[in-house]
């Protein structure tokens, strides 16, 4: 991270009303009972794992938890007490994520399926993305340009900013989702997505509606086209969905900042204009550009004019990788 980025990060809450927004987040600390209950639950889980006696007996309104069982189905099945077996399952459970399931489904998590799918299809375990990012600084007209390389796998995302150290970016050991609108899609679900544009849109958008859905869809598709190992048919369908977003405008024969030719899809989002340039031969993302939509947009001390550049992410290279550096 550059010094300029550090400064920008510190200023992320620099907008009118931020203090009141922060104040609205004030909450009372947990009661001693609540912390004690959490501690007791952990102790019981630890004790059960070591075979040291009975499992937790929860009060009727305090439902038990088993990490190897999805909370919803588990709640239906075990409404009152956590059995010793259930708590042992928590401790011994290998799965740890929203798709975790009971015994018969063990090993069928997206991450677990990943290794089998990888052997079956021979796909590379990583998706490597190299970007150049440019953002207008808020305090001056100085440009802020940075380079980043990201390696994404089924279970983690790691990255390197400039020449800095490689770091893990994500923590979800059971799988790193792509977020489209408010839906999560995992690496191993990509080949199950429909390639009919109408069905695909419905799957991606879910229940979200309005402008938020349109912009969420736009950004989510950008994430999938740039950061996922989606197959060509799915990429083509994603492009089709992108161009059908209400208000989206398509311009052929444009060039990105490196001179590569592609097709641009523009969408107005609030005071911004989003432009995604795509190589329609491979349906890979080339560049995402944000500009001011109208004259008068405030940017720190500056007042921008329509079309002024705000941010730009250029995908210098994207593709499968068989190896990724360890942080």
């Amino acid at each position, binding site marked *: 991270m550059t010094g300029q980025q550090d400064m920008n990060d510190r*200023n992320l809450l620099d907008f009118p009303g*931020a203090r009141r927004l922060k*104040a609205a*987040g004030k909450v009372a600390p947990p009661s001693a009972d609540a912390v004690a209950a*959490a501690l007791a639950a952990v102790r019981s889980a630890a004790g059960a794992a070591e075979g040291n006696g009975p499992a937790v007996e929860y009060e009727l309104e305090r439902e038990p938890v088993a990490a190897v069982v999805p909370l919803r189905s588990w709640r239906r099945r075990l409404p009152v007490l956590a059995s010793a077996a259930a708590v042992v399952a928590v401790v011994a459970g290998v799965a740890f994520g929203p798709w975790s399931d009971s015994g018969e489904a063990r090993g069928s998590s997206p991450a677990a399926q990943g290794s089998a799918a990888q052997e079956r299809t021979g796909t590379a375990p990583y998706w490597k993305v190299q970007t150049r990012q440019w953002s207008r600084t808020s305090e001056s007209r100085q440009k802020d340009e940075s380079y980043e390389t990201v390696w994404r796998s089924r279970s983690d995302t790691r990255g390197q900013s400039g020449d800095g150290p490689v770091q893990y970016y994500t923590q979800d050991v059971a799988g790193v989702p792509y977020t489209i609108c408010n839906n999560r899609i995992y690496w191993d679900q990509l080949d199950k997505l429909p390639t009919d544009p109408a069905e695909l849109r419905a799957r991606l958008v879910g229940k979200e509606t309005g402008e938020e859905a349109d912009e969420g869809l736009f950004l989510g598709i950008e994430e999938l086209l740039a950061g996922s190992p989606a197959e060509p048919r799915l990429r083509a369908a994603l492009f089709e969905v992108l161009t059908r977003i209400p208000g989206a405008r398509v311009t052929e024969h444009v060039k990105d900042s490196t001179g590569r030719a592609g097709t641009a899809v523009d969408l107005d989002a609030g005071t911004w204009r989003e432009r995604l340039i795509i190589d329609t031969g491979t349906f890979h993302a080339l560049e995402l550009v944000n500009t001011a939509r109208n004259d008068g947009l405030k940017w720190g001390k500056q007042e921008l004019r329509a079309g002024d550049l705000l941010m730009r992410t250029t995908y210098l290279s994207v593709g499968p990788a068989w190896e990724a550096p360890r942080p």
Partner: protein
Amino acid sequence: MATDEELLARSGTDASAFEPLVERHSRALHGYFARRAPGAADDLLAEAWLRAYAGRGTYDAARGPVRAWLFGVARNVLAAHWRGQERPAAAVLAGEASSDPWHAVDRRLDAAAVAPLMRRTLAELPSVERELLLLIAWEQLSPTEAAAVVGVPAGTARSRLHRARTRLRAALGPSAPLSLTGDLV
């Protein structure tokens, strides 16, 4: 005093080493739940700690601080909670995604007299941007930590946070009514 990372590593063979983590981080995690699911914060806190305990062997210190990892666990627990909830009629009518805690967050903002204009602007942000912003404003995570919690690359998170801030500035800028303290009324 042992660091979080040392305690978590030690808890693989000594379960009691996990307990100080519960004592250190329960307040922050409970706050996270209380802001997004106020009626269920106590239960969700216990659920989150059980999940964290069950998954402690999979934590890798190179992936980032324990604190951010715990919020990632909490986020999963919260999403499962909201998916399993009967949602308020207004949320259903508005077509809100079932795992999105925005409706509860908005009620909190309303109760705290946050300006309707800000609430509307936040509501119009893509959910990922809104979530990143609130993780920074309320949970005091760094952009990199918030990115890890939400599961997006740090560069993407920074870009989206800048975008969210610009939206808020544009909507709530100098022409918006301010109180004597300079805060939005």
